[in-house]
């Protein structure tokens, strides 16, 4: 660098315009040398600030949509704005995990407490409303809470980076911004599907199993979870899904535990149908088969299913329908809906291949069952 400056200095004597230009260049090079990270920090700050504004608009919109829904559809008797704002800042404090034995039970306890609280608060806000409206309100408030949290966290790092003038904090945040915005965008888009009660991409599992439950007697086997017993080629099927058309995900883990432990059923296979996140480059609506418990979320239900299946030595089979995160939480795309018939074929084949006549099989449609009854 300084060598260069030296060379530039050698060029000085003699000309007029040359001298000015050279001085300009020396200045320019010195500035870029000493201030490069600062300039880039400044650019990153600008960039993040623009993204942050978009996040703010998004979270405000989600909040407004939730309030509008509570007022217009839910017929909330009082103005819900204040309660909603309290709701948005509600935190769930996860159990400590340094000694993880029994951790899932603790998480389950916290999460259940939280779910009950949400249901109770929304119920109190709405007074007399249909379960569909209550469940949709819950989901809208959850979306608004997530967007609120995203905005807060990004703002935290933005302000921290600005205050400490930390180049690396800012550059990292700038790098993550596109992903964060994309995620937030997906959440905001979900609002449109939820508020009119349209099935979402994640509901493909419930759509498939609802075909097996149609016209059969349903019984509640866990919170928000129903089961029907049907038959396929001599096998007795225990078909599970969350109770639709409410926006529920149910408790398939508790349900399977009940079926196997309490009802004393010895299934020869458990088949789970769920939406799965596709990789970039994979096609929406592609079907993949697999083994293992096909269920997402925080891990409590997955843990319970794996535990009960391992204890009873029941093989776990999975049928997955690939989709992006946006497609999973917004209105079901044609490609996904049309996979339903193919999934039915695969499911029938899996049942035929992996079990014999007279066997018992548990089939679970995993996912948000909004707009999908049974």
């Amino acid at each position, binding site marked *: 660098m300084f060598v260069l400056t030296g060379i530039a200095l050698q060029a000085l004597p003699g000309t007029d315009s040359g001298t000015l230009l050279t001085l300009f260049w020396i200045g320019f090079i010195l500035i870029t040398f000493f201030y490069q990270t600062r300039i880039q920090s400044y650019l990153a700050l600008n960039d993040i600030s623009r993204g942050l504004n978009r996040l703010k608009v998004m979270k405000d919109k989600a909040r407004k949509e939730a309030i509008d829904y509570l007022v217009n559809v839910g017929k909330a008797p009082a103005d819900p704005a204040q309660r909603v704002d309290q709701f948005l800042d509600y935190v769930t404090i996860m159990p400590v995990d340094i000694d993880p034995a029994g951790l899932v039970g603790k998480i389950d306890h916290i999460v259940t407490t939280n779910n009950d609280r949400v249901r109770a608060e929304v119920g109190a806000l709405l007074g007399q409303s249909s379960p569909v409206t209550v469940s949709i309100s819950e989901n809208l408030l959850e979306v608004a809470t997530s967007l609120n949290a995203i905005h807060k966290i990004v703002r935290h790092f933005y302000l921290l980076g600005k205050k400490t003038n930390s180049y690396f904090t800012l550059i990292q945040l700038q790098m993550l911004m*596109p992903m964060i915005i994309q995620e937030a965008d997906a959440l905001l888009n979900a609002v449109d599907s939820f508020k009119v009660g349209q099935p979402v991409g994640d509901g493909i599992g419930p759509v498939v199993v609802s075909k097996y439950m149609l016209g059969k007697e349903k019984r509640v086997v866990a919170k928000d979870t129903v089961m029907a017993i049907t038959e396929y080629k001599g096998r007795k099927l225990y078909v599970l899904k969350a109770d639709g058309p409410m926006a529920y995900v149910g408790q398939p883990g508790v349900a399977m535990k009940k079926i196997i432990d309490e009802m004393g059923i010895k299934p020869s296979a458990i088949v789970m149908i769920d939406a799965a996140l596709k990789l970039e480059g994979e096609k929406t609506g592609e079907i993949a088969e697999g083994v293992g418990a096909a269920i997402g979320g925080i891990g409590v239900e997955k843990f319970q299913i794996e535990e009960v299946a391992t204890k009873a030595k029941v093989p776990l089979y999975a049928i997955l329908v690939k989709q992006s995160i946006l497609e999973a939480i917004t209105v079901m795309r044609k490609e996904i809906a049309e996979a*339903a018939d193919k999934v039915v074929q695969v499911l029938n084949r899996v049942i035929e291949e992996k079990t014999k006549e007279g066997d018992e099989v548990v089939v679970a449609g995993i996912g948000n069952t909004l707009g*999908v009854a*049974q």
Partner: protein
Amino acid sequence: MMSSVPGPDKKTKLLVYTIEECPACGQKTKRAFAVGDYVTKDGAQCTKCSSPTKVSLVYAESSKPSGQ
């Protein structure tokens, strides 16, 4: 170091349809989604065999460029 935050999406408009399927003759009718529709809901009478139909699917299609 150019802006890497993507601009608001130019979204393709999604049109949502409800498919009513006749369990007797298998005829499928596609109509626009109406609020309150859900899968397995009772639909209109089948135009072919007059059996009661059921909603079998609800899905979204991107509208054709001509449709915009």
